């Protein structure tokens, strides 16, 4: 196994990732008032990105074949309904995850 290769791959990946995470701060974090549009975007993006990340987690389900993504969709539904109802993060996540494990390990 060639160690130099894996070390350079790790270094390149780390540097690109670090650069992307630092760039917004390098560009806009200069101590004074943020440009209004950046400040605005920073406030409205989180709810939009949360929806995006949820869709991202579900990106590989097949709606038209196999089980139609039913285990995922049902359990996401359960998590969201429970959270609307009780607003207890751990409860919503535990119930939906255990349900998911039962469904995928037994039924499907």
């Amino acid at each position: 196994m060639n160690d130099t290769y894996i070390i350079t791959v790790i270094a390149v990946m780390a540097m690109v990732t670090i650069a992307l995470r630092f760039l917004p701060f390098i560009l806009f974090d200069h101590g004074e008032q943020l440009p209004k549009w950046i400040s605005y975007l920073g406030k409205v993006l989180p709810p939009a990105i949360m929806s995006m990340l949820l869709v991202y987690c579900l990106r590989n389900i097949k709606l038209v074949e196999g089980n139609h993504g039913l285990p995922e969709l049902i359990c996401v539904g359960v998590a969201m309904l429970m959270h609307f109802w009780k607003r207890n993060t751990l409860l919503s996540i535990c119930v939906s995850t255990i349900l998911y494990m039962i469904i995928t390990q037994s039924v499907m």
Partner: protein
Amino acid sequence: MKQIIKQVFPQTIPVMAGYISLGIAFGLLLQSKGYGPIWAFLMSLFIYAGSAQFLAVELLAAGATLIQVALLTFLLNFRHLFYGLSMIEKYRGTGIRKFYLIFGLTDETYALLTGYKTPDGLRDKDYYFAVTLMNQFYWVLGCVLGSVAGSIIPFDMTGIDFAMTALFAVLVVEQWKTHKAHLPAILGFVITTAALYIFGADSFLIPALIVMSVLLLCLKDTLKQEKANE
């Protein structure tokens, strides 16, 4: 210190479940390509990006060029550019820890820190730092564990990584309840789903993020109005 852990730990439990199980899967996969625990450790410590590390395993196995590695990592982690925008104001005044806070800004850390408020009695900077550090700890632990002992785990873990999906589902609801303006959440869902349909599962995040940001900027006045009515 104890107080901080006591108050922050419960918030990070879903990430713990997700990171440890996904980390184990990663460690196992890396091991299967002939790279042992030391590499799992170094990658989770320095790259610290789940999907990029899974990609790295494929690239290593394929003997990809460094240009390919850089380009694919850039595309995969492009979304992190947008996370910082929400953290610039939050992270002011965090001193030297800021470097680590930015380094450790993963999807899940971002989600927790924008989804929840600092628990009562904690300083913001201690809270941000504790969440970031605990999350990376789970990830490193999972990756190394998978590499060392993944094949001897006694029970069937299939499906436990759903905890991460459930976490984002819960945080969508959390954001829905916190913000009166629901347009960003709806736009995020509609645009990402459309982008997934148009561009496919491998390349939809970047177009989705760009369209989302542009549209939100165009809607600035409407959304400001809604905020004013809250």
